[in-house]
């Protein structure tokens, strides 16, 4: 088991637990840091940060659309679509940065649907560090990572 840590776009810190066999990755600590301008309702802002982080972790580790050869989506239900559950995730920590937006009367910035690019980069970088190989495509699902480590499988 190894732990790896990575920073992406100065807005996200992810700590992962990675088990060599069977190449399974779990997020054990995750911090989302973002400038909200002025957080009018901090609880809601926190929720938006957390929602974006969870979606990003899902994309980074497991979520993907699987299409058949004739273009039909094969995992269109929750029995097959690999979305993370609350029990898969740690408490998502948040740090709300407040630098007032001078173009807005209340100084706010948009925080709805937080971008999910930082989590993909942070998680991908952490996994790459853990396995000692670059990651060029997501998700870092166990079969895919195992294939990188053991190409014969």
């Amino acid at each position, binding site marked *: 088991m190894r732990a790896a840590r990575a920073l992406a776009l100065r807005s996200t810190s992810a700590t992962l637990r990675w088990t060599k*066999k*069977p190449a*399974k990755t779990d997020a054990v600590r995750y911090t989302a840091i973002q400038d909200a301008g002025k957080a009018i309702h901090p609880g809601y802002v926190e929720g938006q940060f957390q929602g974006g982080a969870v979606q990003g972790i899902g994309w980074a580790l*497991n979520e993907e659309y*699987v299409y058949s050869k004739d273009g039909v989506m*094969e*995992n269109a239900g*929750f*029995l*097959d*679509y*690999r*979305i993370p559950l609350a029990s898969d995730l740690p408490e998502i920590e948040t740090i709300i940065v407040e630098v007032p937006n001078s173009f807005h009367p209340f100084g706010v910035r948009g925080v709805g649907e937080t971008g999910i690019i930082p989590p993909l980069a942070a998680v991908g970088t952490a996994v790459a560090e853990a396995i000692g190989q670059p990651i060029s495509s997501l998700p870092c*699902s*166990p*079969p895919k990572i*195992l294939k990188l480590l*053991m190409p014969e*499988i």
Partner: protein
Amino acid sequence: MKQRLSAPSDVIDLAKIPGLDAITQADDVLQIGAMATHAKVTASSLVQEHCAALASLAGGIGDRQVRNRGTIGGSLANNDPAADYPAAVLGLNAEIVTDRRTITAEAFFKAMFETALEPDEIIQAVHFPQVEQAVYLKFPNPASRYAMVGVMLTRTAGEVRVAITGAAASVFRAAAFEEALTSDFRISAIDAVTLSAETLNADMHASAEYRAHLCKVLIKRGVEALSA
């Protein structure tokens, strides 16, 4: 029915038949009534004392809502290829008691969603003999949480049984691993043993080769757990 695999004309609820959900023990044999829910099995002190691995397996099925409604009899009669109970019944060398006969685990599981049950035959109980050591290890499918691979590893009087669910069309025993571990119960004994991927499931979540690899990883972890 939800999966459109069967369309019965009538559905008969067995839930209110008295005693059909009873959990009792006699002469080292644990008897679990067919209508015992997963929640009842996992919480039962009789089950925990008789076989902690069985109690923990029941506690890992589905989610809380499923565990409060689903029953051991229902799970076995359905024989879903990724269900947990088939691995327990086969690995623990249990017997299935119906309204007319007793069926061994080996004879009970026939194929995907197929069992030895006649169309009008009803499971009444499952008999679990005493085992010395048992452990159940499951790698859940990241979407459905069913077992991508589930391994029940047991050891009684030196004899090892390895029952695997989730990996193939129906639960099966890994004979080569059983043989190697019965003669030498150490991880090194199975270093050279492999499981052929030929008959294993392949789907969007994992290839057959990945499942074969996963089976061995879980068996090794089981040996480690029982040796500790």
